């Protein structure tokens, strides 16, 4: 400790502190209103599809479109695939990502009937780690109001959500576990997992 003169030490600390500010600043570059606006828009688009009265299969494709536009599918796919994401080649990852996107559109799209006649109110946002947690409340028919939290980041270059937490139940954690189980069933073969995902949901 005594090896370093006092003012040098101060200088090092100053550098570290400065570096922290530099690193921390872009993380909060996304402002609160942009995060809230993103979720507001996504909810409106979901309701526009639900109220359009189109055939379910067509609705699922449109839900997938909303997911592709407003969610950070790349980050979600990487996180859901876990350690295997670092081992696959780019083409394999791209195929997995596309299959996951369709699977999410079908799996969560299938639940649209529960939202008919209900509404989702966006309430505000709070900073969390390097991103924003946008809070909303879902009022569905015949059910108590549900807390729905959306995690939004602009690390992809644009504000996008990467997780939804419904009454404490974490969608990304749940899909991570599900994809891990599907991958284990295929003994780690990501190609086979991708083929299974195209049929699932």
């Amino acid at each position: 400790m005594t090896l370093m003169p006092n003012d040098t030490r101060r200088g090092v600390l100053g550098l570290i502190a400065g570096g922290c500010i530099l690193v921390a600043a872009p993380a909060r570059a996304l402002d609160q209103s942009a995060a809230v606006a993103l979720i507001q828009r996504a909810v409106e688009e979901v309701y526009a599809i639900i109220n359009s009265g189109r055939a379910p299969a067509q609705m699922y494709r449109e839900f997938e479109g909303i997911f592709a536009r407003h969610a950070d599918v790349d980050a979600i796919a990487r996180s859901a695939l876990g350690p295997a994401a670092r081992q696959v080649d780019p083409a394999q990852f791209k195929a997995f990502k596309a299959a996951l996107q369709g699977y999410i559109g079908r799996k969560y799209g299938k639940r649209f009937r529960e939202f008919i006649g209900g509404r989702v109110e966006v309430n505000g946002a709070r900073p969390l780690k390097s991103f924003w947690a946008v809070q909303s409340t879902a009022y569905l028919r015949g059910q108590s109001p549900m807390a729905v939290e959306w995690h939004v980041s602009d690390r992809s270059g644009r504000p996008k959500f990467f997780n939804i937490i419904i009454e404490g139940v974490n969608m990304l954690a749940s899909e991570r576990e599900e994809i891990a189980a599907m991958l284990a069933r295929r003994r780690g073969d990501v190609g086979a997992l991708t083929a299974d995902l195209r049929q699932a949901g």
Partner: protein
Amino acid sequence: MRAAILLFLTLSACASAPPGGVNDPYEPFNRRVHAFNKGLDATVLRPLARRAGGNAPTAPAATTAKGATAGGPNAAPPGPIEMIGNVSANLSLPGKVVNSLLQGRPEPAIRNTFRFLVNTTVGLGGVLDPAGADFALPEIDTDFGETLHVWGVPEGAYLELPVLGPSTERDLAGMIVNTVIDPVDNWLNRDQRTAKLAARVASKAGDRTQFGSTVDSVLHESADSYAQTRLLYLQHRRFELKQEQDAIDPYAE
């Protein structure tokens, strides 16, 4: 007293799971129970729920649902399943009041007391819910498992119980004490207690109808339904108990 402190310390010492993690030392046993529960659902509960929910208002013809349904009537009179559910929920309120008091939380205790009084009288013995609809007194849910949590007892190991489903060591202890301290049982005779239990079972079956697609998706459509059930239960329970949960940051991985 010394024994109580000792018991408390022993319970506190078994906090082995990291916060937000899963503590499941009985997994092999739990998985066998899960297979049994899943079979029970597929052979008994799901067919029953489908029959009961066949013409329920929860499943409107989606392909013809235009925007007009959005503002549709939501003040429809409750169906028989909902009425039984209401009665059962109303009878659970005195027990919740006791637990709120044990937790040192007078406000939910007072609100649930008023809710019980309004729904038992104006709500015709709890069949209807005027307290929630007209007096802004929704049910505030709690149980002895939460009381144990407030007292500092850790969650303990994850358990899947036959028929009753997912739980933890703390919630199982809570469930047992909950039935013992329920004041309603002292006011009822044996037949009424049986009717109360029957209403509770029927209301659980009603839940299976209402949340049918959720249960189907988790139990019958996931690759590892045991792991999914465990995750959903623990996360939701920790949320109910207002425990801080770790947020996933995919950009920091």
